[in-house]
């Protein structure tokens, strides 16, 4: 059965440099032989995350990155500290790895780094029902963590689409946002304390307290650091009781502007439904087939109300009043039920398998900018190719603006042309976002693929991050080349790599 055709065999030294024997011996002594993986096959499996560009390379028979030199699986914080000490002594570059569901290439090895798989450090340590907190190790699977809380009547209320494919540490490292964020906040609001191993192997402990005023937030240097400032090993998260009451509602709006106005008004009038979702016309059409109200009012809005029944009903009444004022109509709740049933699934697979180039881009815009942002970005993508697809929705809603979450799709075509158009689509979207005063990333992070635009958003702030990185990681050992920071000498150049 195995094909005789060799397609890009993995021979090149720069892509497959293995761990030096002295480094191997040092790491093996810490974690045991069974927790140090060095076969080419294991290294191949860790040479990707879910960056769509990387997937396109794999699909074309190429690698998105180098092979990691090895994979090490620490079973405790002490073992991790030992690994980082050895890395400093032997100049081993390391990349923290959770479940690999990131979509910006944050865990791609660019210079044969050693992957540190955190999934053995995976225990729920404590639920404190008085303080309403849970203490958990970073490598615990997100879905298993939430299930363990649910079993005791609680929830962390961080419910990203990737909940089952990600770790709790990964949520924080990538500064993620869940589907109930409009009510409960993003991961930076939910994590109240953490512990991390710094690049020099010292332990950082951010006390789990409700708030502090002890200078700039050290916690926030770690949340979104994507592994460049250290390994998050443990987190304390705010938890809440499972809601006593939940209900959904669906509205049809006549125009995108009226839908956006409704969303803005709801949050500015202090409504906080647990879920608020507005879809543009292409995304609405895909979810409302056969529902007559959408013939004349083609824009779909989905809401979910949770919590004490009286509060949820009051919010539902407020939302109804505001939607009606925008001339919307309530409809069959089929789109809400469908969303509930499929909320943790992945939609891209059938397209990627069929040879399309599908990607998602999420940005933050102000209410004033969002209508123009949508129109200009739609035009920018559709003008790339006659069969290009563009659609968007808004599901993280704030009094000042919202996240615009866009889906792009290019039809099957020759690989080089597809990669050129795909990068150009990103360039156009991020440029328009910057021009209109938005943020180039709402919750997927930077990884490597967004490096190109970080300077334009952060300005001198990027120099501050590099100075901090140089100070705590002078040998650039932890995840080099990510979050806009300097790559290792000779690192593989992938789109966005910072030199």
């Amino acid at each position: 059965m195995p094909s005789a055709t060799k397609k890009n065999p993995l021979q090149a030294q720069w892509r497959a440099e293995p761990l030096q024997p002295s480094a191997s011996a040092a790491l093996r002594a810490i974690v045991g032989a069974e927790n140090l993986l060095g076969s080419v096959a294991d290294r191949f499996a860790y040479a990707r995350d879910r960056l769509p560009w990387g997937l396109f390379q794999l699909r074309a028979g190429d690698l998105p990155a180098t092979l990691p030199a090895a994979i090490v699986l620490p079973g405790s914080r002490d073992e991790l500290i030992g690994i980082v000490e050895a890395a400093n002594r032997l100049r081993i570059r390391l990349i923290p790895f959770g479940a690999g569901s990131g979509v910006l290439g944050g865990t791609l090895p660019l210079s044969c780094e050693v992957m540190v798989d955190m999934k053995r450090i995976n225990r729920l340590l404590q639920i404190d029902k008085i303080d309403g907190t849970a203490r958990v190790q970073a490598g615990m699977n997100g879905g298993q963590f939430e299930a363990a809380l649910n079993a005791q009547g609680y929830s962390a209320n961080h419910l990203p689409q990737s909940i089952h494919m990600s770790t709790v540490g990964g949520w924080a490292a990538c500064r993620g946002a869940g589907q109930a964020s409009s009510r409960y906040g993003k991961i930076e609001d939910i994590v109240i304390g953490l512990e991390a191993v710094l690049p020099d192997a010292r332990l950082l402990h951010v006390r789990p307290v409700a708030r502090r005023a002890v200078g700039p937030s050290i916690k926030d240097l770690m949340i979104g650091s994507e592994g460049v400032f250290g390994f998050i090993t443990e987190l304390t998260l705010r938890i809440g009781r499972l809601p006593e009451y939940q209900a959904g509602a669906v509205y049809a709006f006549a125009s995108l502007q009226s839908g956006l106005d409704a969303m803005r008004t709801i949050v500015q009038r202090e409504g906080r439904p647990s879920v608020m979702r507005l879809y543009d016309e292409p995304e609405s059409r895909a979810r409302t087939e056969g529902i007559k109200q959408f013939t004349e009012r083609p824009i779909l809005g989905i809401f979910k109300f949770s919590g004490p029944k009286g509060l949820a009903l009051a919010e539902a009444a407020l939302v109804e009043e505001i939607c009606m004022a925008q001339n919307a109509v309530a409809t069959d709740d089929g789109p809400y039920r469908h969303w509930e049933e499929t909320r943790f699934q992945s939609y891209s697979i059938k397209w990627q398998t069929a040879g399309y180039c599908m990607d998602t881009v999420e940005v933050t815009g102000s209410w004033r900018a969002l209508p123009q942002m949508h129109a200009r970005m739609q035009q920018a993508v559709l003008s790339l190719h006659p069969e290009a697809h563009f659609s968007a929705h808004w599901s993280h809603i704030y009094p000042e603006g919202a996240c615009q979450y866009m889906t792009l799709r290019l039809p099957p075509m020759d690989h080089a042309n597809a990669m050129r158009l795909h990068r150009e689509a990103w360039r156009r979207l991020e440029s328009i976002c910057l021009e209109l005063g938005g943020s180039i990333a709402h919750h997927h992070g930077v990884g490597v693929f967004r490096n190109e635009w970080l300077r334009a958003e952060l300005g001198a702030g990027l120099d501050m991050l590099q100075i901090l990185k140089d100070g705590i990681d002078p040998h650039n050992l932890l995840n080099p080349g990510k979050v806009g920071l300097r790559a290792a000498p000779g690192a593989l150049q992938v789109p966005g790599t910072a030199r």
Partner: protein
Amino acid sequence: MSPALETLRTCAFCPNTCRPSHSAAARLQIESQTPSAMSLLALAFLDGRLDDASGVVQALRRREAVRESLGHCTYNLDIDAALDAMLEPADKR
């Protein structure tokens, strides 16, 4: 394309929505044992990009996580059966 090959191609590009079906026990959460990674490895092997010396044949025998995922796949894929169908001759070496 054979159904088994199509199954592997679908799974290889999935972000492992079945992941919680694996126990939290340590060894089962090695990335290269997840169904998606196993599918990716199988495709690379069939394509000739990973040869016997890469350890891929041994890696593809570590089926615990793949078997645990059966019935938990969003798309109702049976990766264990697809791997058997595509790799059986190689497995007998």
